[in-house]
């Protein structure tokens, strides 16, 4: 009886309820079968939606996979990737092991570590079997195989590269700070003109790690789980540094920026003099979009900067696994990667080994121009590898304890 009611109700639905897919296994080593199965599927891509240029890029991907593979891509715009993890966790708890509502997630770091640990991902090494994976720069980019020290194990597919990059208005600052001491001095001399994003926003958390790398005595300790270290002792200099900044921060540290987009707005208005981003091409891209003045330039600190990779992954209970794999593979294609690296579009560095690409793919990258505010490859300095994923969680908790008012 109940089934009948449910069936009748489903028949009435205007937009179909997520239909439980048959529990067929999708095997990416038989790629033509995957492409065939993907045709007509709807893929719900859960991805941070805070940057319009990235949203526009994802919309373009949607058009491409629709034309090429008949896959419909729906961008579920998240303000925090943890929300997508939450959905999968909830569905698992509710016993929905098939026909889940999340097909593809833009992910890395602690969210990936958490999903992997809880067994929420497909575990048959699918990403390494994608046709375009062969061009990924596995040797040149260690962060493609170790995501915040967690082995990727083919459970997520590389999408882009990130490096913490600062930018400033050269019409205001003549020379940007070189190290943490310079930065602190600049902040003291220019009260109210510097801020960072509040953790757990990713750029905020990254800034904490960047400072931590600069003040910690033994960097190798950060590659171990935070539980194994004396957290308070190791991080004491970090809090000391942040406490030193706080009275002269924007709004006296009473509020912080919410994300990279707000940092960009603040710099555009001249509210702050130095902003930061994870996307080395962002400043040039924003100049082209008339969002920043053309006097903006980028810099990095002299002891290196936090770098990592970002990925896409497929939950174990995804409704459209084949479609999701087709999208993940398309994201890895030279066409999609070159467009993503284009500062007129997004400016996110590629994960591909450009020299290994076939001639026409390489030509796409050779045609790209570097904007006035983008650092040349040799100006980037060392890449600081992400600490073990457990550090991020503890740093965020401790930051909240210290800087969120509790009375």
């Amino acid at each position, binding site marked *: 009886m109940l089934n009948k009611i449910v069936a009748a*109700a489903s028949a009435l*639905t*205007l*937009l*179909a*309820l*997520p239909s439980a897919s048959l529990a067929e296994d999708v095997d990416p080593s038989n790629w033509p079968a995957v492409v065939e199965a993907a045709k007509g599927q709807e893929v*719900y891509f*859960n991805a941070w*939606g*805070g*940057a*319009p240029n990235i*949203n*526009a890029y994802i*919309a373009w991907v949607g058009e491409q996979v629709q034309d090429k593979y008949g896959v419909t891509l*729906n961008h*579920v*715009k*998240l*303000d*925090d990737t*943890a*929300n997508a*993890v*939450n959905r999968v*966790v*909830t*569905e698992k*708890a*509710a*016993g929905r092991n098939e026909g889940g*509502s999340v097909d593809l997630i833009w992910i890395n770091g602690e969210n990936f570590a*958490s999903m992997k640990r809880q067994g929420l991902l497909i575990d048959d090494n699918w990403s390494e079997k994608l046709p375009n994976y062969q061009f990924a720069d596995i040797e040149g980019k260690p962060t493609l195989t170790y995501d915040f020290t967690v082995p990727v194990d083919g459970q997520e597919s590389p999408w882009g590269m990130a490096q913490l990059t600062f930018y400033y208005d050269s019409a205001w600052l003549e020379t940007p700070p070189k190290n943490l001491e310079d930065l602190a001095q600049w902040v003291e001399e220019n*009260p109210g*003109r510097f801020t960072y994003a*509040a953790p757990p926003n990713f750029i905020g958390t990254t800034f904490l790690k960047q400072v931590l790398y600069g003040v910690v005595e033994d960097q190798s300790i950060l590659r171990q789980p935070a539980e194994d270290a004396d957290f308070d002792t190791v991080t004491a200099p970090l809090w000391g540094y942040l406490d030193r900044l706080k009275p002269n921060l*924007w*709004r*006296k540290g*009473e*509020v*912080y920026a*919410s994300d990279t*987009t*707000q940092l960009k*707005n603040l710099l*555009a*208005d*001249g*509210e702050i003099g130095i902003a930061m981003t994870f996307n080395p091409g962002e400043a040039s891209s924003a100049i082209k979009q*008339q*969002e*920043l*003045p053309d006097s903006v330039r980028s810099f990095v600190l002299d002891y290196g900067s936090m770098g990592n990779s970002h990925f896409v992954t497929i939950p174990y209970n995804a409704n459209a696994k084949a479609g999701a794999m087709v999208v993940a593979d398309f994201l890895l294609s030279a066409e999609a990667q070159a467009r993503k690296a284009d500062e007129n579009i997004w400016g996110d560095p590629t994960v591909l080994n450009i020299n290994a690409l076939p001639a026409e793919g390489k030509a796409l990258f050779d045609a790209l121009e570097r904007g006035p505010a983008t650092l040349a490859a040799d100006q980037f300095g060392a890449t600081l590898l992400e600490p073990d994923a457990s550090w991020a969680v503890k740093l965020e908790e401790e930051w909240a*304890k210290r800087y*969120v*008012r*509790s*009375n």
Partner: protein
Amino acid sequence: MQTRNKGWGDPLILAPVVMIIVLTGPLLAGLAGVVLPAIGYFPSLGGNQITTEFMREVTLKPGFWHSVHLSIWIGLATTFISLALVTSFFASSRGTTLFNRITRFVSPLMSVPHAAAAFGFAFLIAPSGWLVRLVSPWATGFDHPPDWLIINDPMGQALLFGLVLKEIPFLFLVALSVSSQINVDERLQVARSLGYGRVWAWFTVVFPALYKQMRLPVYAVIAYATSVVDVSLILGPNFPAMLPVQLLRWMNDPELEMRFVAAAGAVWQLGATLFAILVWRLGEELVAYMGRRATINGHRHQNDRWFRFSANTLITGVVIISLLSFVILAIWSLAGFWRFPDALPVQFTSKKWIASAGALWVPVINAMLIAATATSISLFLTIACLENEYRRDIEFTPAALRILYLPLIVPQIAFLFGISVLLVRIGWDGSFWPVALAHSIFVLPYVFLSLAAPFRSFDRRYLRVATSLGQSQNRALLAVRLPMLLKPILLATALGMAISIAQYLPTLLIGAGRVPTITTEAVALAAGGDRRLIGVYALVQTLLPAIGFLAAVMIPRLTYPNRKFFR
């Protein structure tokens, strides 16, 4: 065709029952879905033990009590300031040219979604906002925006004033509608003839009667302001945020155990809202007592010019700020690079509009479909209920009115979370119908309240003529009453659509992000986001309901161009 009698055979008898189920069913289910996990019962997550642990644990979260205080304070202060301004203005100026002018702006302002108004307000008052730009650097000397904490301030003042801007039109319309039912002019005449000043006369003889009928809408404002999410995300404090915003974060936390904590927090939210209403209730008694004392001391308070001047200035200010908010949204949506402190962008460009056109399509269609569905359901139920009332000659009791207000007085976040948990269990989350039905809960009260008065005051002789000519009651309804009520029906429809389009939480929590509407997309851009894009989204969000109201005014004129009655 035969006339049907008022027997049990008439299916209309079911209408009130269905309506009560629609209004209270999801509410009760949702509350159960929150209260049970809050005390530890959530079997699918391994919670089998009844415990008070989570109710306590949530209070240990950083900033918890601050969040609770904020919610209560914002709820009470918003309501007090809005009500004080509206009543002062009514007392000062009802019947004047200024009053009529302001009234013309109030309905359109009421239909503006909260989020759009909040964005416009933020763009206006921020240190880098339009107001500072307009006077810089020539008057202020600012080359860079001043380092003033205005938006997202820890005390929530930006949020408070943003909410006041939106609650004033609501209370204004309520007061206007109640005023038409309580013989304001006769009351005033008596008081004025005894020598009372205009304002004081109004407060002594009109206000008590007016407030008596405004009480439920006022409670709805308290409940809304203590638990609002979208406006808090845009204007409200962050460290810590209002309780409802914290709740939303906990609900989205990937740690499963946080589900219990979030549920416990939702129970605290219920308590905070209830507490705010109780405090207000005590305040009512206090004001009533002081009012009685003040009326018997014989003062006539004839010199009230300063009072009337301030009330008029403040309300005019509110209207002007609201209008400027839309001007600034429009300017940003067309802005090229705009350096501080320039009063206007150097270039204007339609680039963002063109670039957004493709992305706007889906959320706009979703919003319209959901609004149309929720409003149709609400209209159908409302008309069925009102017609049943007429045929069976029964009166709508105060208890029924309270049920109608229930979904507006219980904080949305407290029971929607419970519903979403239930929906995930049966696998119905993230699809169209649950979202549209959830919207109906909030649309129905407004549609009912807006249509009830014209429906009831309809001249029954038309219907008697129809039935005496041998037509059934159904035909009298469909062929006589409804066509003649076209205008109020269209207005109720437009109002219902506006309410639905503005809904943020039901769309977000029940839709699981898979049914994006223009409102969820706009709020997702957040106040720190790309201002040009926010301008585009907020304007589209504002225009959708406006089109509905325009249609409600134009359709009767076009359909019945020669009949004054219908217009």
